[in-house]
């Protein structure tokens, strides 16, 4: 019987994990544009690839 309490707690933790991931994804703007990333992945990386494409729009300094 004690097992079910552990399982419920674990299920809650998993759900919380997904909730937090969802918030993170929203916050970093991953739902803002659903077209560009789908195209971006198909571009060929040419040999002299010196462009650092950033995935989350954050700044590199």
């Amino acid at each position, binding site marked *: *019987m004690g097992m079910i309490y552990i399982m419920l707690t674990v299920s809650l933790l998993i759900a919380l994990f997904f909730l937090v991931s969802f918030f993170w994804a929203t916050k970093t703007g991953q739902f803002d*544009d659903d077209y560009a990333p789908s195209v971006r992945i198909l571009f060929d990386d040419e040999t002299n690839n010196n462009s650092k494409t950033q995935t989350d729009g954050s700044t590199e300094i």
Partner: protein
Amino acid sequence: MSEGCYHCGDKILGKGIHFDDKDFCCIGCKNVYQLLSNSALGQFYQLEKGAGQKPQSGTLEKYAFLEVEKIRSKFIDFEDVDHARVTLFIPQIHCSSCIYLLENLTRIDKRIRSCQVNFAKREAVINFDTSLKLSELAHLLDQIGYTPNFGDRKSSEQKKDRSAMYKLGFAGFAFGSIMLWSFPEYLGIEKDNPEFRSFTSYLSLIVSLPVFFYSASDYFISAYKALKFKSLNLDVPITIGILALYLQSLYSIFIDAGPGYMDSFAGFIFFLLIGKWFQSKTYRSLSFDRDYKAYFPVAVTRIINEIEEIVTIEDIDVDDILLMRNDEVIPCDCILESEHARIDYSFVTGESEHISKKKGDFIYAGGKLIGQRSALKVVKESDRSHLTSLWNEVRSEKENSGRSIYQDKMSEYFLAALLIIAATASIVWFFIDSSRVMEIAVAVLIVACPCALALSAPFTYGNTMRLLGRKGLYLKNTSVIERINTITDIVFDKTGTLTSSSQYHVDYVGDELSDQEKIAVCSLANSSTHPLSQSIVNQFIEQQIIPSSTIENFEELTGKGLQGKINGVRLQLGSSQFVGAKKTGNDESSSHVRIGEKSGTFRFSSELRDGIERLPKTLERYTLHIISGDGEQDLDLLKSIFPEGTQIHFRQTPEDKFNYIKALQTANKKVLMIGDGLNDTGALGIADVGIAVSEEAFRFTPSSDAIIDAESLIHLYPLLQSSAFSKTILRICLAFSLSYNITGLSFALTGMLTPLVAAVIMPVSSITVVCISTFGVLLHGRFSRVKKI
């Protein structure tokens, strides 16, 4: 040859330019190709054919204002010692090739560190070394055809409001979790285990708290506001339902009787928020709320003590001397200081003729300067000018909350019925079993909660809006659909709406030209991108004359005309003054040509859009009106295609148009206004529905409720019908949602509403309604005969 320009895909007029085994329509396109292929960006052309943008002939000077610190800092998001970041709005972004090119800008200029495109917003976030000036960056983008738009600052300033997503996240999380824990409850497995029951109950309670206090808060606020102003909206019965659900569940938890309806509560909020989210997905990249500032240059050159300085529009004071360039829109009411100037007022009045002004003449804001640089003295500041005052008048009058009027009306009946049923049930049960009165009354309130009803409108309207969008009519928000469905009168603007603004019908009068001479004239005209020249070229090409001569000493004098030498013969094409011909009619509707000794005149008349003659017939149901800023020259043409009884008015100023619509509305008409220019803004703003016509959906349009593709204009009637169909679907949804409410009520009234029944009825009814509205609109879209060309 017939494939069109390798870069932009446009039809090549005449010989075109042959380079690197490819054909180009103009030098600009060839240059972009050269630049791209030198930078190893050839993949651009493989992704999508002819996707390039025709570059405009912008000079670096055009962007000089970006180097004024005060203006620059407005656009720069972030800056440190050697690196800066800027977010630019680039309306031309339209396909995967654009993304590829912009994100690889670093190959063209090493000083650009990276670029990230947000396709949905048509924005590019660019990181660059500060050794590259912002003006140079803008100029580079301009050169490759992606002119950044600095005037429309609003779109990039738009705050990212993500609270709706967070609310949705919490509700979804709570819904899933609570339902999982409630399973034993549904199946009656752990009924005899009070310890476990209270564990899940309190767990549900904890999880539901953020849903109640955060996710659902909008509904409480909205209902409170409605009651405060003694009106009703759909949020009132929803709030009653939510409160009944939640309080009943709390009570149940505190007396250790299980988690109550917590699962239904969370699910209910979850579904409602999905509906809200669905409805809010609009065309974010289109700008419906441009104010006059979007049309004016961001900054202008001011002369103080003979020193030129660049200032923002806001900083201009009365009596300042401004220096305006060719093609710039004058931002203030001014007096001309230079000797002569030509002003294009088509923006403001819709009149296509340019107007000559002399020193000391008064010039209204909104006119476009044509030709030489001119000095102007400011009489009124930008925000007090004649034009903007008209604009502000409209703005304040039309404020729409985006609420569904239809639903708000429904909610009155709904609430009345709800209260009557709850009261009757309580009285009846008082005689049957007085201990259960409270329980039954609460059950009635719970089950009658208009969840499905609340979902039907967002989904039906949201789907209809997307259907219309696919066919070329882009709505600002879903409430426009309701207003479209009540329309009685349609008012058309003429120039740019019924007639195409870039195509003219050309007639030639004058000395007979030989084929050789025709080719020469055609070649000369082909060297200019001026719309009148292009019309002449099109006219010649229809006669099988190909512009193939080479021109020597070619010159294009802005505002005057073109000249050059072909086979030793001197050619001139342009205004009467320039060519030295006698003035016949006005200069804007004709162009004079002189070739050697011969001379002649091309006359231009506006050409109706393709297929527009079929439009009026389809719109028989509505009363039609035409208001135009132009003179009467096209009266016969319009009379021939519009049915009798159509009211046609010419020489209408923006105020006249505004007042005309207002007068119709006072006569209890619901008016749909279709126009294109800044001169229609007042009318578009006050009309019940204002639709702006645009050749390209992402070009500048005045503020309006909807934007229609110029090509889709002839399909206006089917589009209006599609919109009207949403009403039918809404009724069907309504019938379904009410039938679920009645089913639920029968459980509630007989005292059999268990949490399990509620947990089944609520999602099932919501899903049915969502399916009906989605498939209804989808099927309608498939079977209606409208096709996007």
